[in-house]
């Protein structure tokens, strides 16, 4: 038997609660399967399991539990020989909690686990829970069929028309809450500023080559295949980290632990306030088109629910890019236990000296905040220089 624990979905999480189990007791699970939806201050997160075996003793829904609490037990195949009980054989008994549609989808997705539950905005999820409506029964009318607040209200209106008021379950509070998220960010950032001796470096980068390259790439492609400058920044940072590995990893128990890959946490501002920086795994190995696809998917899921637990636990560094309407530059606060955060301001036309002449160039302000316990400014400067160099040859990214 092994325990499946409440994961720490970032340094700023203390408690969470399971709002949906995507497997039935007795189901066979594989490492990497999404088995539960856990509500945190970052919204609803699809939690993966990293055990193989048969899952039992699932905790009840909606109970607040601390990080590290046991959520379920898993009988490992070698420890306890299990008479193979396919998940599907058990499903009919679970009909009320898990509609058939959900189980079929989960089973079909098993080889390449993907969240099969409907996408739902955090506000809609919270309202649905208050009203006691199961989101899987709802038809989404938002982008990509996301279930919106309006869909929930519509369903509630339809139900109350069909059902006596006394049958409506009592409202439950909680769920995603901007004030709670603000508090969690405050705690993590205060800890960062208290514990991490930051040093800061800034560098102006001529963005003309990157800009021209993107314009040419986008010119003859339909909108859905176009790239944003953000993907060049991501890839250039990932490449630079290959050359400067001491900035990619964690400060733990008084020493540096290198990341097991380059997993860039991409800071995403949430509408209505708050911030989340989920990982793009192995960003250095992805093509620009793949990175763009990941980025679009990540932004969509960060805002409408459905981030995966590994995306919140794995980032080895954070990148924050302010985009085309942001400020000129940004100096970030390191997200512990990471050791660095790279910031990019808005690209703007600026005077620039080329061969002793002043010309106008699109210029990008790049910055680095890094943990002085793990590295020095000399090394940090190498990272920014490597990012600059990579952006001068966008065709190689």
């Amino acid at each position: 038997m092994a325990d499946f624990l409440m994961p720490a979905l970032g340094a700023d999480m203390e408690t969470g609660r399971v709002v949906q189990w995507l497997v039935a007791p007795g189901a066979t699970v594989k490492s990497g399967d999404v088995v539960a939806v856990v509500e945190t201050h970052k919204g609803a997160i699809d939690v993966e399991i990293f055990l193989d075996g048969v899952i039992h003793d699932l905790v009840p829904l909606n109970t607040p539990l601390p990080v590290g609490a046991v959520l379920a037990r898993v009988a490992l195949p070698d420890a306890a020989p299990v008479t193979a009980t396919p998940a599907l054989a058990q499903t009919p008994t679970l009909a009320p909690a898990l509609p058939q549609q959900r189980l079929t989808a989960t089973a079909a997705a098993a080889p390449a686990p993907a969240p099969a539950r409907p996408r739902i905005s955090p506000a809609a999820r919270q309202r649905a829970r208050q009203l006691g409506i199961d989101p899987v029964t709802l038809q989404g009318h938002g982008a990509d069929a996301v279930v919106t607040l309006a869909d929930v209200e519509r369903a509630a209106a339809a139900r109350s028309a069909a059902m006596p008021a006394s049958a409506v379950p009592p409202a439950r509070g909680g769920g995603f809450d901007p004030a709670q998220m603000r508090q969690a960010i405050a705690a993590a950032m205060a800890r960062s500023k208290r514990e991490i001796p930051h040093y800061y470096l800034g560098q102006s980068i001529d963005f003309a080559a990157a800009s021209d390259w993107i314009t040419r790439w986008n010119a003859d492609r339909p909108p859905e295949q176009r790239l944003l400058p953000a993907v060049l920044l991501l890839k250039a940072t990932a490449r630079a980290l290959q050359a400067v590995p001491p900035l990619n990893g964690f400060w733990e128990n008084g020493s540096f632990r290198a990341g097991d890959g380059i997993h860039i946490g991409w800071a995403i501002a949430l509408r209505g306030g708050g911030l989340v920086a989920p990982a793009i795994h192995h960003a250095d190995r992805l093509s620009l088109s793949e990175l763009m696809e990941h980025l679009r998917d990540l932004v969509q899921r960060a805002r409408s629910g459905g981030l995966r637990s590994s995306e919140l636990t794995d980032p080895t560094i954070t990148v924050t890019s302010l985009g085309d309407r942001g400020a000129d530059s940004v100096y970030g606060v390191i997200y512990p236990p990471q050791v660095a955060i790279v910031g990019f301001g808005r690209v703007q036309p600026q005077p620039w000296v080329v061969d002793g002449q002043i010309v106008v160039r699109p210029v990008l302000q790049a910055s680095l905040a890094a943990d002085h316990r793990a590295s020095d400014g000399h090394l940090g400067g190498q990272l920014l220089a490597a990012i600059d160099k990579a952006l001068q040859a966008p065709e190689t990214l």
Partner: protein
Amino acid sequence: MSPEDIRLLAADVLAGIAPEADLGTVGEHEDLREALDLDSMDFLNFIIGLSQRSGRPIPESDYPQLFTLQGLVRYLSS
């Protein structure tokens, strides 16, 4: 497409990107990105939605014509 259809289309596409954004509160000449706080990813998704549903390719060099409601209606009705 009639100007009315274009407005409905824009509102519909927008609802999927920024569900709380209300196109009705945006002036004809206001920059949609500023008024609705759309970042570059939001705006690209907006263009993708408009392009797919109107059948127009909307090259990147035309984006500035779609920054305002008036420009957008003019562009897609031409």
